[in-house]
C-alpha cells in the first residue's frame, strides 16, 4: 500500500486494514481528537500515539478487510469529525457566558422576592415599629372624637 496526500492536506499512510495520519494539536486540540476518536471506536480500532510535541498520530484499523478507497474514506470521515467536534467545542465555549447568565437569572428569580423588594419591606417594618418623636397619644382621643 502507499503514502498519499489527498486534497484535504492530511497525509495518510495506508497499510493492510490500516490508515495512519497525524493531527496538529495547534489546530485540533486533544479534546477534539478524543471526541472524534470516541465516535470511531465502534466502527474500527483506534490507536493514538504521540508523534511529536503537539502532534498526535491517529491509527485507524478496520475490523475486516478494506480497500484503499475505503481506508481513505475512513480517514476523510475522521477528518470531517475533527472539524465537527472543533465547531461544537467553539460554539459551546462562545455560549458559555450566555448559559451562565441564563442560569444566574433562573436561580435569582427562584429565590423569591428580589433583594430590593426585601429591603423596602424591611424599611417599612422599621418605620412602623419606631416613633422617633415619642408623642403620647391619649387612648380616649380618637380621630373625630
Amino acid at each position, binding site marked *: 500500500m502507499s503514502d498519499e496526500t489527498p486534497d484535504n492536506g492530511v497525509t495518510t499512510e495506508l497499510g493492510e486494514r490500516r490508515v495512519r495520519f497525524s493531527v496538529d494539536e495547534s489546530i485540533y486540540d*486533544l*479534546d477534539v481528537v*478524543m*471526541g472524534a*476518536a*470516541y465516535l470511531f*471506536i465502534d466502527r474500527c*480500532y*483506534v*490507536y*493514538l*500515539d*504521540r508523534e511529536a510535541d503537539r502532534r*498526535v498520530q491517529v491509527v485507524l*484499523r478496520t475490523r475486516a478487510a478494506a480497500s484503499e478507497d475505503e481506508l481513505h474514506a475512513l480517514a476523510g470521515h475522521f477528518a470531517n469529525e475533527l472539524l465537527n467536534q472543533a465547531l461544537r467545542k467553539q460554539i459551546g465555549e462562545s455560549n458559555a457566558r450566555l448559559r451562565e447568565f441564563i442560569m444566574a437569572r433562573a436561580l435569582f428569580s427562584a429565590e423569591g422576592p428580589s433583594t430590593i423588594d426585601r429591603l423596602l419591606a424591611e424599611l417599612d417594618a422599621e418605620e412602623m415599629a419606631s416613633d422617633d418623636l415619642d408623642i403620647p397619644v391619649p387612648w380616649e382621643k380618637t380621630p373625630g372624637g
Partner: protein
Amino acid sequence: MAEPLALRFHKSLYLGDAVRRAAERFAALGAITLGESDADWLVSAVPLRESVRARLGDELSNHALFETILARKGIST
C-alpha cells in the same frame, strides 16, 4: 508458549487507570502484566490462544482509549 504481545500507550494521551481497567477487562484472554516507562504505559500480554493474539491487542487498545475518553469526560464505568 506464545510470544508476548507488547503494547504501549503514551502517557500524554492515555490515563494509567484506563489502561489498567482495560487490562483487567481482557485478563481472561491472556496473562497480562503492566509496567511503565518515562513516556508510556506498557502492557505485555501473552494470549492464551494464538488465534486471539491480534484481536487481543486491538481490542485492549480500543478499550484503553474508550476508558480514557470516559474518564476525561468525568464518566466512570
